[in-house]
């Protein structure tokens, strides 16, 4: 039994498990941090970005001025942003039988895997994961296709040239494998291979293995997976949460008695308490509005935004913000808000009770009805005529490299009255802001990551007692910036088996029994 690790990103995993002659891919995460090396894609012509000077090495021997631009003291690639894909050379991807998806953030690389690799298998995901995952992909494609870039920069990727580039481009790994965004056609084709499953549904694979998704409490329809035969059990734990937010609570007990537990998707902000961050978010927002400034919230169009809106729903009246307009701008804003209301089965108990009344489970329905929250597909069209300031804008993409957020950064960056509040933990906010420097606008960092922290996970592991734990190597040592914090790592006996991109692990199993099925008529003759 082997585990092939195709992604080095601990929260955007992509592993392949060979188990009892089946080949199972666990998640299909797309590492988008690579886009931070690219220049932002402005929606409206930006004189600042178009006047940047090209980059040539100091001694003049390397000239890449067409591909690389200097901006605010850093060098960026002037091309359509590219993503870092899961490793495709470690094993033959056409042999994959099934792909199990744990949540909508962990499926963004799906089209790269299911299309053009000879993949003929089935993808399993829950209905909210499929529907919201589709929206996020659609949004990504839309962001890219709305501002087409003729140029595709490739010269800088030459090994000899990359070596002489300034950081962080110099340190970027596997740049040759970086790929441009897929098309909507590829998304549709990839998602047509998805088969829907419900929590605790038992899915038989070739009669050899049974897989079953369990509620993981992190997002709508998010799941952990149990992969088992009669005598072996592997638990795959991906983004999970024990906090009470909108999704159904995490199913912990079903993880018990695992031979191997693969642990990924812990919080990226182990020292930031989500509740504290939420409070800070609200107070900074109120402060800026009162001073007459605008608030920009770069975010994904599904997930934490539902909790932010719910929190604001309670906060608006008490903070006297009843007349401040809130805007949610995304090509899928409307769909995301509508879809969130129809997944009663996947929500926490409180929200389910509301549906029984029948009332919409999320209060953003009321914010929309009372005109406090308005949503638009983009800054063009209705928004430009209806838009009033000061206001609060929720929009993507949180990397600040593409999407409508680029426009607001250019528009509001010069005034110190305005504030940008980062709530998504996926990108370093300083790197995200780099091409916009110098900024007069205030920057607040309130990352909200509800996934398990080290304290919660060690408690969980004590409870479910797996024989062996496999995890990304990042979890086996404290973070670089806080090397003295031994509480920010996993300490277990036996010690966890760490993996990194391109690792192949032999999983320790001691199988002692197999199952025979005997018709009862025969079995009774045993005893004669």
């Amino acid at each position, binding site marked *: 039994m082997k585990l092939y690790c195709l992604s080095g990103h601990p929260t955007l995993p992509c592993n392949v498990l060979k188990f009892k002659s089946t080949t199972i891919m666990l998640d299909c995460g797309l590492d988008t941090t690579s886009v931070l090396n690219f220049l932002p894609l402005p929606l409206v012509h930006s004189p600042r970005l178009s006047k940047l000077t090209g980059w040539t090495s100091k001694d003049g021997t390397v000239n890449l001025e067409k591909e690389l631009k200097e901006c605010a003291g850093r060098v960026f690639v002037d091309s359509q942003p590219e993503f870092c894909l899961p490793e495709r050379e470690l094993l033959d991807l056409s042999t994959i039988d099934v792909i199990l998806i744990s949540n909508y953030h962990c499926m963004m690389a799906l089209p790269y895997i299911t299309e053009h690799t000879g993949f003929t298998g089935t993808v399993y995901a829950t209905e909210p994961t499929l529907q919201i995952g589709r929206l996020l992909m659609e949004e990504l494609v839309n962001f890219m296709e709305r501002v087409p870039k003729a140029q595709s920069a490739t010269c800088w990727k030459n090994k000899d040239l990359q070596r002489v580039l300034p950081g962080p481009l110099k340190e970027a790994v596997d740049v040759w494998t970086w790929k441009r965004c897929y098309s909507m056609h590829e998304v549709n084709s990839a998602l047509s291979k998805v088969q829907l499953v*419900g929590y605790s549904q038992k899915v038989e694979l070739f009669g050899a293995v049974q897989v079953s998704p369990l509620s993981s409490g992190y997002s709508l329809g998010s799941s952990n997976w149990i992969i088992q035969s009669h005598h072996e059990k592997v638990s795959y734990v991906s983004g999970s949460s024990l906090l009470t937010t909108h999704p159904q609570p995490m199913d912990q007990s079903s993880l018990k008695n695992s031979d191997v537990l693969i642990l990924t998707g812990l919080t990226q902000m182990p020292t930031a308490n989500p509740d504290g961050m939420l409070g800070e978010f609200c107070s900074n927002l109120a402060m800026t509005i009162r001073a007459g400034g605008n608030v920009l919230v770069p975010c994904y169009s599904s997930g934490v935004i539902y909790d932010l809106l719910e929190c604001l729903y309670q906060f608006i009246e008490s903070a006297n913000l009843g007349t401040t307009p809130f805007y949610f701008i995304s090509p899928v804003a409307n769909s995301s808000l509508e879809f969130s209301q129809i997944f009663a089965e996947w929500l926490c108990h409180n929200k389910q009770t509301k549906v029984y009344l029948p009332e919409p489970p999320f209060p953003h329905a009321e914010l929309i009805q009372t005109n406090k929250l308005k949503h638009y597909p983009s800054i063009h069209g209705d928004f430009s005529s209806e838009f009033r300031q000061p206001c609060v804008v929720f929009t993507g993409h949180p990397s600040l490299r593409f999407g409508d957020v680029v426009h607001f950064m250019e528009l509001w960056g010069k005034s110190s009255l305005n504030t940008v509040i980062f709530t998504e933990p996926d990108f370093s906010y300083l790197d995200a802001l780099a091409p916009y420097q110098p900024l007069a606008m205030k920057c607040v960092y309130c990352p909200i990551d509800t996934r398990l922290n080290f304290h919660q996970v060690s408690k969980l592991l004590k409870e479910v007692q797996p024989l062996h734990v496999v995890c990304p190597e990042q979890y086996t040592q404290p973070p670089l910036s806080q090397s003295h914090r031994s509480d920010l790592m996993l300490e277990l006996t036996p010690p966890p088996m760490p993996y990194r991109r391109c690792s192949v692990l032999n999983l320790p199993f001691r199988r002692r029994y197999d199952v*025979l*099925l*005997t018709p009862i008529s025969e079995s009774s003759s045993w005893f004669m």
Partner: protein
Amino acid sequence: MPEIKVTPLGAGQDVGRSCILVSIGGKNIMLDCGMHMGYNDDRRFPDFSYVTQNGRLTDFLDCVIISHFHLDHCGALPYMSEMVGYDGPIYMTHPTKAICPILLEDFRKITVDKKGETNFFTSQMIKDCMKKVVPLNLHQTVQVDDELEIKAYYAGHVLGAAMVQIKVGSESVVYTGDYNMTPDRHLGAAWIDKCRPDILISESTYATTIRDSKRCRERDFLKKVHESIERGGKVLIPVFALGRAQELCILLETFWERMNLKAPIYFSTGLTEKANHYYKLFITWTNQKIRKTFVQRNMFEFKHIKAFDRSYADNPGPMVVFATPGMLHAGQSLQIFKKWAGNEKNMVIMPGYCVQGTIGHKILNGQRKLEMEGRATLDVKLQVEYMSFSAHADAKGIMQLIRMAEPRNMLLVHGEAAKMEFLKGKIEQEFNCYMPANGETAMVTTNPSVPVDMSLNLLKREMALGGPLPDPKKPRTMHGTLIMKENSLKLVSSEQALKELGLNEHQLRFTCRVQLQDPHSDPDTLHRVYTHLKSVLKGYTIQHLPDGTVMVESIVIKVSSSAEDVNAKVLLLSWSYQVQQSPTYLFFRRFRPRFGIFFGNV
């Protein structure tokens, strides 16, 4: 052999008060707990004394499962749980859990407040009953206890309707509830995987009918409504608030839009808006088309259909009114019917099945004079039309479901005896079909498999003996020790069994004495035996050992002479019991003619 028992307390050769008891693998499950629309007395509810005469319901039942929110499937639930007394789990899907208490409250109000009945369940009882409900998701495997598991499948029929699979070990039963096999304007078709249940318990409302295509029925319906409106008549469509009503509303809404009609369409109860809300929030339970387009256009927001007020019934001019309940047995639909019955320009369209005893049933059977309460009679002059819009599977649909699930036995409920009989005949060409009446028990013998854990070491060892690849089509004999411990069966090698059980090994050897006459010395006799065996037993390992024994494979042969007669020699044979079979047999068979001795019981 194990048996599965099925006893309908209601819906056995009848439509109404569905309630079926299933005993499987030592577990007892109640499927549905409905009321009968045709009765106002004790017969309204299933006869729970069938169980309670022997003790409490809670002790007997492991769980109760409700298939959908129609009252003939859940109407007796508060009575059962709160008045008869049941505290175990009740399973139903989320939409059913949401809608069921509203319909129960409605039913309670009509019965208690309007008809003045006492000794009926209260609002509080409905609430308490609903607290015992555990919601079910589609395809989720719910472990009721360690052995009993249930799984819900989509059934179409109404919002949230489910079929359920009940499984204990390898025995299983599927109960369909009510289902339809063709998608309609708002719901999808029922679906189940090839789960091969021991029994498929199916409804059989339309067991003998093969209905024409849905399109034709819709066209017919619209034509009739249109004609009636054109000649200035009023059209009454008795419906249940949720279900068919929404489908017909979508149908009329699009027709009105297309034909640009002006006549008002009303929907009678305040429930409509609420009902439509449920459809919006549970849109994942509707059909593909509605789900796909709901963000752009929600099909459950109607432009032409308005709320009805009692006073509108006397308004002049044409109108269409949807009114509840659907069988004209009480409430607003009955009041409007009484008002409009006298005018031949008017029309009543019955879009679904009507239970015996209801006014709906009577007028559909052509009765034109109705006896009303208080000895008054009502002349029925308006046109009576029947359009089968209720979403039940017809004969073709039932056969389709059988092909999908591939059951071993079939059991029919929720239909009229005569119609069931016909379908039973058809089904029995392939396999057993049962149709127990209420209180009657059908017993089905099953042949479940017993899982045995086999030690991997033993498996590998036995595999190695029989050549490289096992032939999956041929059974294979294996030797091992079966250990039964804590409800599990293990097959291990005898060495491992001894070790696990802490027992000493005992050797069992067979011995045999063969007398023969031979004048030679003992060693010579042995040598002669050795050379002889060498010549006759080709292909066997035969050794003459220095300690004065001959070994044929693992069989030991010694010679000793008797004290009295030196010519009389005794051959001593000894072999372990494992060798009992072929080699020994062969050895003796070859030996016998030469020495002419009978070897008896070998």
